[in-house]
């Protein structure tokens, strides 16, 4: 019994004269390649040309600051727990008096490190963060590293700079 009536019996007959001579097929194939010869290349010359990867691309990590320039991270460690690759590690420190301008919460991350060789850019840290402190930015990728010393990114590379703030389209 047939399950559907869409089966079609295909039988290849003898090749016709034109097919056996191959020449019409060769001419047709050469026309195809010539058409592609004059069509626009699809190549993107990567380091010079970059293409927009979309608003939700998961690229370089960033530790956000708030409008007053205080770090949002409170070193709760939820990102490190959420991280499936165990790439995040941090050392917490209590905020001293007079540091209110620097750190938003009473506890902050003295050391915050992401091992970029371990990171799989899944974005779970971003989802886990209760303080909206860590994000994977959509407009910038982690650059290529040449030695293992460059692999662990500390706060110097991760914390947002106030003159180059990272804003997503939805936040504006």
């Amino acid at each position: 019994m047939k399950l559907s009536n869409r089966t079609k019996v295909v039988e290849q007959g003898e090749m016709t004269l034109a097919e056996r001579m191959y020449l019409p097929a060769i001419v047709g194939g050469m026309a195809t390649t010539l058409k592609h010869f004059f069509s626009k290349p699809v190549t993107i010359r990567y380091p010079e040309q970059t293409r927009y990867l979309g608003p939700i691309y998961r690229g370089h990590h960033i530790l956000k600051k708030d409008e007053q320039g205080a770090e949002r991270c409170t070193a709760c460690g939820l990102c490190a727990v959420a991280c499936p690759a165990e790439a995040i590690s941090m050392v917490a420190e209590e905020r001293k008096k007079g540091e209110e301008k620097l750190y938003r919460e009473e506890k902050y991350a003295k050391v915050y490190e992401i091992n970029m060789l371990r990171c799989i850019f899944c974005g779970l840290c971003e989802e886990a963060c209760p303080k909206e402190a860590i994000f994977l930015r959509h407009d910038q990728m982690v650059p290529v590293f040449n030695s293992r010393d460059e692999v662990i990114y500390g706060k110097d590379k991760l914390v947002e700079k106030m003159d180059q703030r990272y804003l997503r389209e939805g936040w504006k």
Partner: protein
Amino acid sequence: MNLFDSVFIAKASFIGVIFLITLGVAAYSTYFERKIAAFMQDRIGPDRAGPFGILQPLADAVKMFMKEDFIPANSNKWLFIMGPCLSMLTALMTSAVVPFGDTITIGDVTFDLQGIDVNIGILWVFGIVSLGVYGILIGGWASNNKYSLLGAIRAASQNISYELAMGLSIIAILMMTGSLSTKAIVEAQQNGHWNILYQPMGFIIFLICAFAECNRTPFDLPECETELIGGYHTEYSSMKLGFYLFAEYINMFISGAVMATLYFGGYDYPGIDFVTAQLGATAATLIGAGALIGKALAFVFIFMWVRWTLPRFRYDQLMGLGWSGLIPLAMFNVVVTGLGVLLDQQILIGIGGVVVFIAGIVVYDQLFVKKKLA
């Protein structure tokens, strides 16, 4: 003595120029091969070395020279070195009889733009091309490697098979011109009487055979990577490999020049009388030389175009096409041309021959080839 000296110097400098043009064209063929391949696959191709990547051949040459020059322990060392040298030598020797232009006068010296005008010009080309097989055969044999040997054997049998059809297609031209000299053949085609009009079928046969003689796709069985690793140059590295590849590109350029000479009027171009009247004979000759090189380059483009379009033949298909396809066709062409010469109606008979051939094939197909009923 003075005249001899100046003619000698003029000839020597001309040969030097042809040598440089051939080598330059061959070097840049590698670049354009990659560019054309890229364009046909919607890519850009090499564009890192210099603007548009035009320094790529230089970079490739430096790479080739810097690589380790390895000679296998069990190979025949001298033959192993001789193989690529012979390939390169024969590839460069062929251009000697190609007439690149009419006579040119510099000062009081008049000389032909041709290496040597021998009265066996076409036979020279054939002889040297046949010798070219030895480069491949010796290289493949001396490598002491099964794959190399298989590739070399394939190259030899393929070249011998296709030389027959090639020779037969040239016989038709010889019958029309009555001379083996390339110069005479070109002069018979002046003012637009190009042989392609008289010999369309012969040209197709010659073109297919030229592909096979140059070991180009779809006839590149001697070096097919999938079956024979690299074919005859499996064991070669460094500049010896470079020589083999270089010889292939030189062969392409020279066979393009030979095809232009035999079928497309050589250095003839439309409006040659007008240019001669306006600018003088020397300018007309130089433009003619440019026209010949342009035609040859157009053929090089066709070689590359076909390479990036067609897959490779199977070996029995290759032999079948050569022996039972092209050779009978070439014989038919000889008979038709003979008829044309006899009746002094060459264009008519030439085109009529193609029509009769196609009609014959269709009739044969209708009468004798069994068809499956639908």
